[in-house]
């Protein structure tokens, strides 16, 4: 079938989204910053945003590695 590797890549991406979701829920959902008064919510959000960004960067790096591995032949052509 044409583009079999692309179907596989989509499937891997889907698995990574689900695994990434698990990480987000298990890490971010349990963070609760207190002791800064009115700044609690802001600091809480900044930390959560930071972790989310790190996870997104890791996700992109993994996808990039997988892309090179799956499409090695095509890209080198």
């Amino acid at each position: 079938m044409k583009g079999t590797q692309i179907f596989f890549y989509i499937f891997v991406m889907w698995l990574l989204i689900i695994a990434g979701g698990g990480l987000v829920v298990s890490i971010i959902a349990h963070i609760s910053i207190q002791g800064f008064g009115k700044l609690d919510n802001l600091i809480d959000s900044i930390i959560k945003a930071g972790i989310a960004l790190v996870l997104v960067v890791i996700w992109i790096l993994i996808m990039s590695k997988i892309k090179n591995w799956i499409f090695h032949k095509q890209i080198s052509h």
Partner: protein
Amino acid sequence: MMLDRTIIGILISAVAFVTVYAITPSLIKILTKRKMVVKDYNKEVATMVARPGGPSILVGILASELTLYAFFPSNEILAIVITTTLAFLVGFADDRKVLGGWFKPLALAASALPIILLGAYNPHLAFPLFGSVKIPELYLGLIIFIIPVMGNTINSIDVLNGVASGFMTIASFALTICLVIVHHYDIALASLPLGFVSLAFYKYHKVPSKIFPGDSGALTLGAMYGTLSVVGHVEIIAAIALLPAVINSFLFLSSVKRIIEHRQIKANPVVHTEDFKLMASTDKSAPVTLVRLILANGPLTEKQVGFVIFRLALFSAALAIITSFMMEIRI
């Protein structure tokens, strides 16, 4: 109530489909008369195609969503209508006069503000199997981010005759099914016009295209899809249904390593064979795109490439539907 919804669903679907189906030929005539045409580079014989088709897409969406609003008024429908219209205006401005680098994403981000101002969102991000996470402030950033990303993702896949409208037809009907599975019936109803508008437009956009959606059409479709994902609380599911387009953007960005418009590409990722089939470019400086990867196994006609993309869209749609069922399961 369910019967009411079914009847209204049929009515707004018909309004969306018939409006676009009926007015697009007139739009083609008007655009051609005003010489608002562009060359279709994938045709052997020089062919000029009318552009943009955004106005007929917007009229179809407005007619059907406002009909729905008359029966079931809600802030969610208002948010869909206003955000989609603003995204259309950004795209239309870009169709008429090429907008500068960051203006378009910023203007699209601003189009998302009505969702926030109308409070048509729930700051919980829901994931399959693991539950949801409450991110009140962060979610506002996500809304601002999601509309330009979805708009540009659809815009980036508008590369061949019929692909953007055909792809959106599949993705939006999948989104409607997913919304029903997660019991968000009102938003499922509001999502129906997107699928039917895309389907009606596909009639004129398929190979050989009589009209191109242009930035106004692609951004309108993408922004409405993004808004539906937010107001329907199905952000992750909606992203999964769009995976082939996401991959296209991802491959493109990871090969050019910066945010640029397709028109700024110096080396074309796709070239033509003598019999005018599409063939992957051997130029190493050309960006890697979804179409280039599809063509890596050998030349194909424009129509064949489109059908491979539709098969990928159907596969992603199936994954999105599976994910919706997984939303009910907790581990």
